[in-house]
């Protein structure tokens, strides 16, 4: 059960991180929110996404060691990215909260 929970957490980090990287590109953020995105914000969003991917990687390695954790993370990464493609293609607005939260924190 602990394995499953940690996998879910790592998967969530990977999905959110990947989504942030995708949304840091204007062609995708425009699908989610119909307005332009400042260059500085998109760079920060991208690095935040990278940090979350690293965090997911860290969880997998810490729990399972490198040889198995790497496989787990690799599978999570590709599956999460594919899920992002599907969400952006069919239900892009569902990622709106991600961008909204981010913009809010930038404006503060």
């Amino acid at each position, binding site marked *: 059960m602990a*394995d*499953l929970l940690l*996998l879910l957490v790592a998967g969530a980090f990977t999905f959110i991180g990947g989504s942030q990287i*995708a949304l840091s*590109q204007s*062609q*995708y953020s425009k699908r989610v929110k119909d307005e332009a995105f400042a260059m500085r914000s998109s760079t920060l969003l991208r690095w935040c996404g990278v940090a979350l991917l690293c965090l997911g990687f860290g969880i997998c390695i810490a729990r*399972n*060691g490198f*040889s*198995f954790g790497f*496989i*787990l993370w*690799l*599978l*999570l*990464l*590709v*599956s999460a*990215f*594919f899920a*992002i*493609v*599907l969400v*952006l*293609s*069919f239900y892009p607005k569902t990622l709106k909260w991600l961008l909204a939260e981010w913009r809010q924190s930038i404006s503060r």
Partner: protein
Amino acid sequence: MTPHSDFRAAMTWLHNWVGIFIGTVSFAVFWMGTLTVFSYEIDKWMLPETRIELADAPDPDLIFDSIVSSVPNDRVMDVSFRLPTSREPVVNGLLFAERAGFKRVRIDPRTGEQLPERGSRAGTQFIYPMHVTLYLPGNWGWWIVLFASLSMLLLLISGVIIHRKLFTDFFTFRPKRKLRRSSLDLHNVTGAIFLPFHFLIIFSGLVVWAGFYASFPWTLIDQVAKTEVSTTYDLADAYSYYPSEPEPAGTTAEMLPLSFAIARAEAIWTDRYNQTAKADFIAVHNVGDANARIDVHRFFPKNRSEAFRDFIRIDGISGYVVEDREASAVQAVRSWLAGFHHVQFEFWVIRWLYFLGGLAGCVMIGSGFIFWTASRRRKADERDPLKVSFVTAVSIGSTTGLIIATGIFFVINRLLPTEFTFLELSRPAIEMRVFFAVWAITFLHSAVRQNNAWRDQALAIAVISALAIILNWVTTGDHVLVSISEGLWAVAGMDAMLALTALLSANIALQLNSTTDRRSGKERTVSSDSLIGG
């Protein structure tokens, strides 16, 4: 034209043509490999007698005695079996006896009772070997799969080179655009996102069988010189895991219990790795001989990417450890890659992620086929119709045709009684022949119906999948609710996947049908262009 664009053009040519020629084999290998992830679950679905609960503490001596007693009045020399697991609760043993030769024996580990011969090759003995050898005669299958795997690596690399906007379009899939555009998007997305997984899975597959390929020059020399196959392939040996066969002493002696040898080996591994280690495969050589040997293996440790690494040989009479193999650096790397490829992890979530990755590979190859035909059909209708018609037939037969053949393999398994024979062919042989016959028919159908075959075959997949679910229910009584309530997750999962396949295929068939209707309306006034013309 700059050298840079020359190179890209050359890579595009390479990607297109190698992809077309190798696509059929690659799709078959990917599809069968994807199903192999759940080969034991498919076994449970196709062999209802194996839907038993795992014995709490399986007794290896009971299993061993049952296997030996399956050939009464014969002298058993070697016995091997895999200890039961929740995925494979029935023991599939193999023995070698003086008169009977090699014989497979199935045992219920709870009682030691011998089960009848398996009535189907199912997942582990048809789908998995199909993934590795394509069931071609001799060693041709191995070499063709090797060639296809090397070509796939080349295709993955050339695909990255020719993709002009790899990072910009990394997450781009536009399903509502024209078929030519959306199929290219899907091809790019599955190719780019799953690139590291696909690269590793293909590369690790090559490494797993490298021992076989490395031994080729020696086997060839043996064949040419008409000598017996050499036993000392230096390169293959250095790389291989399998230990040598011990010679019998020729005098009888009483053997110690297997449980003792297993406990001894497990204690050594537990101490070495500082975590509980369980043996999973036992091989007994020279049964009842003074030089009896018990090989205890740990093929696939739980949730570690390792395969065929831990092996301890114990003297079957005294109990001394005769050999405790420590993996060399090369073997350790191979072990990791083999563990990655064989997907025997205990954690079921990972198997589903592998399954998804495998399906993505199938989608990548299939969408590549669709893009190729869609982007050439209009031009080729005027210039070279035969070429496009041929590729269209091959594309459809290779993809949906193979899925239909697989579905029929499941359906025929549920339709035929276990003891059924026809023209001296047993049920497993009939199942295989029906599979290949149906696959061949789908190619013919594709050649005749051209792009309309996509719709026909999608519909066929939907019907066959639904039929397989119903037949499983009728012949075993295990519909999804029963399976779930009795904890038969393998059967429930298989039925759920079949249901999903049926729904998706029916949806695709309906969409293709409406597109055809729209198009045929235009065609009355414009042209006879086909469904996929983009």
